[in-house]
């Protein structure tokens, strides 16, 4: 299965997930967007040697995932696909920062390993929360939310167009890639030059398409302004959702609950 098909399926599946009807899906997109942003900022604000204090933050994606009926393994696999960059940067930490910060029995653990783990945990949390956001909100709603929250309309509209035509163009592009693959042998014919021609053709077709779309818009009275007959309604539910989660995040940021709980337990045992 080629990469392009996989990407298409990914988009399609995320889009399907966002079409579900669960309490989480029904929330106003602005509430979810804002909460996710606060979530990410609090997670990222933790010190680089902190791991245990971050753990309670897993509760948020876990709750969203189960209430939104999202498939855990699928989202987790998606995170694994993009982890390499963070891994590559993070893996230098254990090499450089060899100062021993912690000993458990015979094992001594350097600061580098701790900060590396911290990066990975943060990565999983932040990347995961974004995927959860899209899977339980949908891209179009996120765009609407962005616009309502002050993003320039032209930018939001542009995002909508982009998203809409990804579905069309990926099919076109994959057919072209397919046609090329069937007449290429031993890796011949897949070089940069042919790639340039291929993209050039695709681009010409794309521009022609843009012209036709513009015409279709003109025919329906387009005057440079895109209007949408839709209003988002944020009620008490949304306010409670946002405020409660934010309070939770900040509380978790201030108090290291695992540490408190852990010392309580270890004290009990010892």
């Amino acid at each position, binding site marked *: 299965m080629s*990469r392009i098909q996989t*990407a*298409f399926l990914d988009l399609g599946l*995320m889009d399907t997930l966002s079409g579900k009807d669960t309490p989480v899906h029904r929330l106003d997109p602005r509430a979810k967007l804002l909460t*996710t*942003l606060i979530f990410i*900022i609090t*997670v*990222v604000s933790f*010190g*680089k040697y902190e791991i245990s204090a971050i*753990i*309670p933050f*897993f*509760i948020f994606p876990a*709750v969203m995932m*189960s209430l939104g009926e999202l498939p855990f393994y699928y989202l987790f696999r998606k995170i694994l696909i*993009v982890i390499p*960059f*963070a891994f590559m*940067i*993070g893996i230098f930490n254990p090499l450089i920062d060899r100062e021993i910060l912690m*000993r*458990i029995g015979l094992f001594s653990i350097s600061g580098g390993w701790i900060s590396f783990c911290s*990066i990975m945990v*943060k990565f999983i949390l932040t*990347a995961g929360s*974004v*995927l959860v956001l899209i899977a339980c909100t949908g891209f179009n709603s996120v765009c609407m939310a962005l616009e309502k929250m002050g*993003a*320039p309309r032209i930018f939001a*509209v*542009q995002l909508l*167009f*982009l998203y809409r*035509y*990804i579905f069309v163009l*990926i099919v076109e*592009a*994959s057919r072209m*890639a397919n046609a090329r693959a069937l007449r290429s042998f031993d890796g011949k014919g*897949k*070089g*940069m030059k042919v790639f*340039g021609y291929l993209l*050039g053709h*695709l*681009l010409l077709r*794309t*521009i022609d398409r*843009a012209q036709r*779309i*513009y015409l279709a*818009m003109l025919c329906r009275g387009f005057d*440079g302004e895109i209007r949408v007959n839709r209003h988002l309604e944020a009620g008490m539910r949304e306010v409670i959702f946002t405020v409660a989660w934010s309070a939770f995040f900040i509380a978790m940021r201030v108090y*290291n609950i695992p*540490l408190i*709980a*852990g010392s309580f337990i*270890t004290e009990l045992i010892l």
Partner: protein
Amino acid sequence: MHMADALISPAVGGTMWAASAGLIAYCSKKVRDDVDDIKIPLMGVVGAFIFASQMINFTIPGTGSSGHLGGGMILAILLGPYAAFLTMASVLTVQALFFADGGLLALGCNIFNLGFFPCFIAYPFIYKKIAGEQPTQQRIMAGALAASILGLQMGAFGVVLETLFSGISELHFRTFVLLMQPIHLAIGIIEGLVTAAVVTFVWKARPEILEMAATAKPVRHLSLRNVIAGLLVFAAITGGALSWFASANPDGLEWAMFHVSGKEELESPEKGLHSMLGAIQEKTAFLPDYSFKNPEEKEGHAKTGEGEPAANSGEDGKWPTVSAGTSVSGLVGGALVLVLAAFIGFALKKRS
């Protein structure tokens, strides 16, 4: 080279968000004022094109590995800088949201690195200058190549600075630069060649498409002076944010210096190192005042910070007890909470 949320600090992320949001607002206004309505569908569809094209690979000669089109430069050539910047921003937004490729907070950094440099520096001052008013195939080739390489070099440098200022990675400035720039030189050359190939193809097939972009009026308005002024304003904002950040953490600037200049030079005075290591903890704290943090936790961290050089000199008697205690508690508690989180998720699922 998409930055991830996990690698940046809130201050850096926030600053770059502000910068990118400002640029988006500015470009939106510019595109709005442009009489040419067709730009609206064109931007969206060409953005989708960039996205789709990134999914097709080609074989990089002699290596067997494969590459794809990055986008910023070709967008600038096709759409002009303002529309191209907006389009690049949307492409990156979709990538961030759907493929978790670059996070939500890091989006500002990515838009700036991959959008600003190619559209507002490399395109007007490199590509336009080389390709000129009456482009030839050679000029387009040279211009696209030079502009792509430069754009990516600046973008890569942006990644380096943002990472260092965030202080999450231990990489030294020099190592990091030596790592990033050559890799992105290679990527830039390939990107440049592909961009040139596509642009010359379009130029030969339908020259009017490129003329449309080249003669669109916004390009002329983009003077070096404006760009420099913009950069200065941005630097002032960044500086402001960072100094706010530094003043809340007295050692912050010192710490930044330490990171940028590499460890060795500042290592000699033991005191300096201590305070710096201590500062690292505070630096990355969300709320800059200690009182917000659990005193016990702070205690533990501060101790480890101080204890470290002591360990080197052989007196490792005191700290492990305290630290191990807290660490073990942390681990036990962490595991507990993790189980709890999983349980909550599971229970909710069962019910619904």
